[in-house]
């Protein structure tokens, strides 16, 4: 068992005192980010990324990934106590979590949410431990055409699985690619779309886009909704935890289903949010007492949480092995790898063993420590949310501006952040999805270079994309995923026409 040995080695990397310290700092910051509106996993990590430029990459990724786990945990606190999802993936948790809190069972709901998140993450990390090395070994044989096919698959499945209108998904994605193309072309050295402005030479940094789209955009949206935080309070003691745990074991079926959905949605870039909704829906369909859902059924908390956490965690699997992130936050972490000088992809498992296995080991540790931290510090975080929005909003704007500035010490970036923020507001309101935009911005250069390399190999023959079973299969799957929404759209159009015909008669 090579994996076990490597994992043990990883633990010895992650268990050093400084790394444990970074883990704790990351978790606390992450919960804070998850609790506050306008600061989510993706832009929280983006803002803190510049602070890690000088750190050792292993410590840096441990801290940043712990911010991610913390944000995943933190989202549940606001959902249950305040009926405000701190993160999009905890929307489904509010359905039953808040009613439970209203009935005075907040502690129970929180314990259930945290524990089930933890279980979800644990299974996803197990999947990463054993699947990632296999996938990486397999991917070592990939040529540029195969990589482009995998990237194609990622983007097509976005269009296919997105709940947003497919044309808007496509537009958002292409905008990401277009922004990624701005600046100097790395192959020919030619300038593209700079129009004589020297600030555009380096192109648009995805960190700025993430901070603007998710941070400023979210604050503007929150402002519009006019949030007043009126929450329930909760204290968790050991007796309640123990009782809830005993009850949770009875729901193992729900756990298993949610974890599987989560892992699948995380590896394919469906993301945590659809995974949580899907598990909630499936749990409701499978339950005997369907009517109790939405009124405070503990299963309504147990179903979405492990799925969201499993999806969030397993999103790192394609990021580490193929260099393709499964979620916006994973995309930001990927950007971090590039900045620290590590090339994500299959070679990472060969060349940077300490880094990869240190990270994987830290996922186990981080989630255990995270569970203990959230269970013991809930009243604290609830108190933070009682700070009025009139204080929180400008402070978050300030933090975003600081984060945008530190990326390149450029004031132009801060201005771009505001522009992205306004766009983010309109995009969110008009249902353009932001995740494909960010992913395209991160992967744009990589996708372009693998496409051009494949074209060079084949001398411009498009046939290279079905030259062997692997590439052909990936491409066929991509096209299939692309056509799914069109098929659904066609069906609903026919149905509408039929209904119209009936009305006409």
């Amino acid at each position, binding site marked *: 068992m090579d994996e076990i040995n490597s994992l043990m080695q990883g633990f010895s990397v992650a268990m050093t005192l400084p790394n444990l310290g970074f883990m704790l700092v990351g978790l606390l910051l992450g919960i804070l980010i998850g609790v506050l509106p306008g600061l989510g996993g993706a832009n929280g990590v983006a803002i803190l990324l*510049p*602070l890690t430029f*000088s750190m050792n990459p292993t410590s840096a990724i441990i801290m940043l990934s712990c911010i991610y786990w913390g944000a995943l945990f933190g989202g549940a606190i606001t959902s249950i106590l305040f009926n405000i999802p701190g993160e999009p993936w905890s929307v489904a948790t509010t359905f039953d979590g808040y009613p439970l809190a209203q009935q005075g069972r907040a502690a129970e709901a929180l314990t259930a949410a945290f524990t089930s998140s933890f279980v979800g993450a644990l299974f996803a990390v197990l999947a990463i431990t054993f699947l990632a090395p296999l996938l990486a070994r397999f991917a070592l044989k990939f040529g540029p055409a195969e990589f482009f096919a995998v990237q194609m698959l990622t983007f097509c499945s976005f269009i296919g699985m997105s709940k947003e*209108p497919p*044309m*808007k998904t*496509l*537009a958002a994605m*292409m*905008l990401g*690619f*277009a922004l990624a*193309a701005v600046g100097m*072309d790395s*192959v*020919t050295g*030619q*300038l*593209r*779309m700079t129009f004589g402005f020297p600030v555009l030479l380096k192109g648009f940094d995805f960190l700025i886009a993430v901070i603007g789209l998710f941070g*400023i955009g979210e*604050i*503007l949206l929150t*402002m*519009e*909704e*006019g949030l007043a935080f009126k929450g329930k309070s909760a204290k968790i003691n050991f007796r309640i935890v123990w009782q809830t745990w005993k009850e949770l074991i009875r729901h193992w079926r729900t756990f298993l289903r949610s974890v599987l959905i989560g892992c699948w949605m995380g590896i394919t870039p469906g993301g945590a949010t659809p995974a949580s909704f899907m598990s909630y829906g499936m749990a409701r369909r499978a339950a005997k007492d369907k009517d109790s859902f939405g009124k405070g059924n503990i299963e309504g908390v147990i179903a979405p949480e492990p799925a969201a956490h499993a999806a969030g965690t397993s999103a790192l699997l394609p990021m580490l092995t193929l260099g393709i992130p499964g979620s916006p936050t994973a995309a930001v972490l990927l950007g971090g790898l590039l900045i620290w000088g590590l090339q994500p992809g299959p070679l990472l498992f060969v060349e940077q063993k300490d880094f990869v296995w240190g990270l994987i080991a830290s996922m186990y540790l981080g989630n255990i420590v995270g569970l203990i931290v959230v269970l013991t510090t809930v009243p604290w975080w609830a108190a933070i949310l009682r700070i*009025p*929005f*009139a*204080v929180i*909003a*400008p*402070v978050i*704007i*300030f933090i975003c*501006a*600081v984060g945008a*500035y*530190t990326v390149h*010490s450029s*004031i132009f970036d*801060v*201005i771009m*952040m*505001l522009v992205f*923020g*306004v766009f983010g*507001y*309109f*995009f969110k*309101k*008009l249902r*353009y999805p932001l995740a494909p935009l960010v992913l395209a911005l991160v992967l744009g250069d990589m996708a*372009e270079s693998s*496409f*051009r390399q494949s*074209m*060079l190999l084949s001398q*411009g023959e498009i046939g290279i994309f079905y030259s062997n079973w692997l590439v052909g299969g990936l491409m066929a799957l991509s096209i299939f995923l692309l056509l799914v929404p069109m098929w659904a759209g066609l069906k609903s159009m026919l149905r509408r026409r039929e209904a119209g015909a009936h009305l006409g008669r």
Partner: protein
Amino acid sequence: MGPGNEAAGLNRRIPEAGVALALLVGGLIVIVDSLRVGIEWADDGPRAGYFPFFIGVLLAFSAAWILLQAVLGWRKETKLFSQWSELRDVRAMLLPTTAFIVAIPFLGLYVPGALLIGFFMHRHGNFGWLTTALTAIAVPVTFFLIFERWFLVPLAKGPVEAWLGF
């Protein structure tokens, strides 16, 4: 959805068409610029516009599609983008933020940050002068300590910081 509804807010079709139009223009810019740098093959492989050209075409196509749908459904659209009162709340955030960012090149990050927090707390929070002033100063000072002292990452500074000797 009578005229009363219209008066209460901004109809969705206007921002819908506006954003689609902006994306369409963006797509056309990408196409034109790709044609400028060349989309065909040179001796050493595809030229710089080869890949972005496709991107531009797809962007323009999807934006045109959305725009077309918005225009075709122009009269039927009854959904609101936002209530006017909600848009006023957004403006209440957006204008001070813009002012804050415009001030950064002249004053650095810290002073405009303090002003932004102070303005907001005073205007929307019903806080006393002392609480407002203390919070507005404490936040940037904390950031100064974390960034400049602990992580040694310098942030933009202006005349006030220079006068204080940093």
